[in-house]
């Protein structure tokens, strides 16, 4: 045994011993009684054996455990800052879009209010110009309704008929005049020219008569010549109108 230890020690100092052999040596020198001639070797082994027992304090390991677990969530956040930023920006963008859509939806009813009537000005006009509601609407309202026809590029039979009725039967001179002007817009609609010629015999107000003559000349309606001649001969018609009718006849005659 002692022989073996001596031999082991020799190899130990040469750096030739294995871990198992070093363990044997360590255990040997941990004994209470060590042969005197080996005493001088003991201290190293004891020292290193004692050092093996050192451990970090319990307080330290506890502190470390909390440190490792506590920062975990923030670290995870820190690990993916770009994904978070991306998500935030996308969310913000979506919010902007949604906000914009909502804003528009709430704005539109106000902004679009005149639009539905613009979509169907004819209907609006018909409502105002309807003969039955004549007493309920003011002249300016009816003029406005007539003027709406200017915005229309095409008019159907009902619209032109409505304007013709207004021209012939509206109580207000100005409305009739406006209807006259509106009708010249639709000179190519069937029945409009005829209605204008016919109206020349119906109208009694000089203003409307003059307007009618001017309009008929403007649309170069030769069939109106007969009506105008009749108007020019009629004694109860104002001189100005008769003069205007004569001028119209002349200018229409020149066209041919």
């Amino acid at each position, binding site marked *: 045994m002692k022989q073996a230890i001596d031999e082991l020690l020799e190899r*130990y100092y040469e750096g030739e011993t294995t871990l198992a052999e070093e363990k044997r040596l360590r255990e040997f020198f941990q004994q209470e009684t060590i042969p005197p001639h080996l005493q001088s070797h003991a201290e190293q082994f004891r020292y290193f054996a004692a050092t093996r027992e050192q451990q970090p304090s319990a307080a*330290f390991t506890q502190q470390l455990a909390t440190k490792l677990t506590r920062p*975990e969530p923030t670290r995870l956040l820190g690990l993916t800052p770009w994904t978070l930023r991306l998500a935030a920006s996308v969310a913000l963008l979506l919010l902007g879009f949604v906000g914009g859509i909502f804003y528009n939806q709430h704005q539109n009813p106000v902004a679009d209010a005149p639009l539905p009537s613009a979509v169907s000005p004819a209907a609006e006009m018909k409502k105002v110009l309807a003969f039955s509601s004549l007493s309920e609407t003011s002249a300016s309202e009816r003029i406005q309704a007539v003027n709406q026809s200017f915005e229309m590029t095409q008019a159907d039979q009902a619209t032109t008929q409505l304007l013709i009725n207004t021209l012939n039967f509206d109580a207000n001179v100005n409305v009739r005049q406006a209807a006259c002007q509106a009708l010249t817009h639709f000179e190519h609609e069937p029945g409009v020219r005829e209605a204008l010629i016919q109206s020349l015999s119906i109208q009694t107000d000089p203003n409307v008569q003059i307007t009618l003559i001017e309009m008929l000349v403007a649309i170069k309606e030769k069939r109106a010549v007969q009506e105008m001649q009749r108007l020019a001969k009629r004694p109860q018609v104002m001189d100005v109108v008769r003069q205007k009718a004569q001028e119209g006849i002349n200018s229409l005659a020149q066209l041919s």
Partner: protein
Amino acid sequence: MDLQAFKQRILPVQGRLFRLAQLFLRNREEAEDALQDVLMRLWSNRQQLDAYHSVEALAVQMTKNLCLDRLKAHRRQPVTATDDYQNVLATDDSPYRQVELLDSASQMQRLIDALPDQQKLLIHLREVEDYSFDEIEQITGLTTNNIRVILSRTRQRLRDDYLKVNNNETGY
């Protein structure tokens, strides 16, 4: 590497790292501080740890370097804290023997402190932590032969120094 893997692979090594830090710093608080530093660095770099062949070797290297850096930065000798040995050696020995052991233990500690860093590290890894030559090779980058030679020299030197000190003291 998640927290579970980290706990399984790194935390068992912390005793070793602590003793290594103690070897250089010779102060419990400073050693714990260095150890915590190393562990937190490993933790924050845990994504890259799988690339290493041996995380333990890496941790040992990091601890050694960190301790040496700190010693250099502080420009002072390690603080001797012998109180650790009082705890360790508290056995049922007689008080006289305890003092004697404590005395020789601190003697031995001074002798080790006097060693060059490389010798200090090698003998510590071998004697205290039971590292094989292969493992020491991984940590230090030295060849097995080199390790053997340095180890042999350090062992002999420690004994010689010890004998010298004690012969002087006891007047042999």
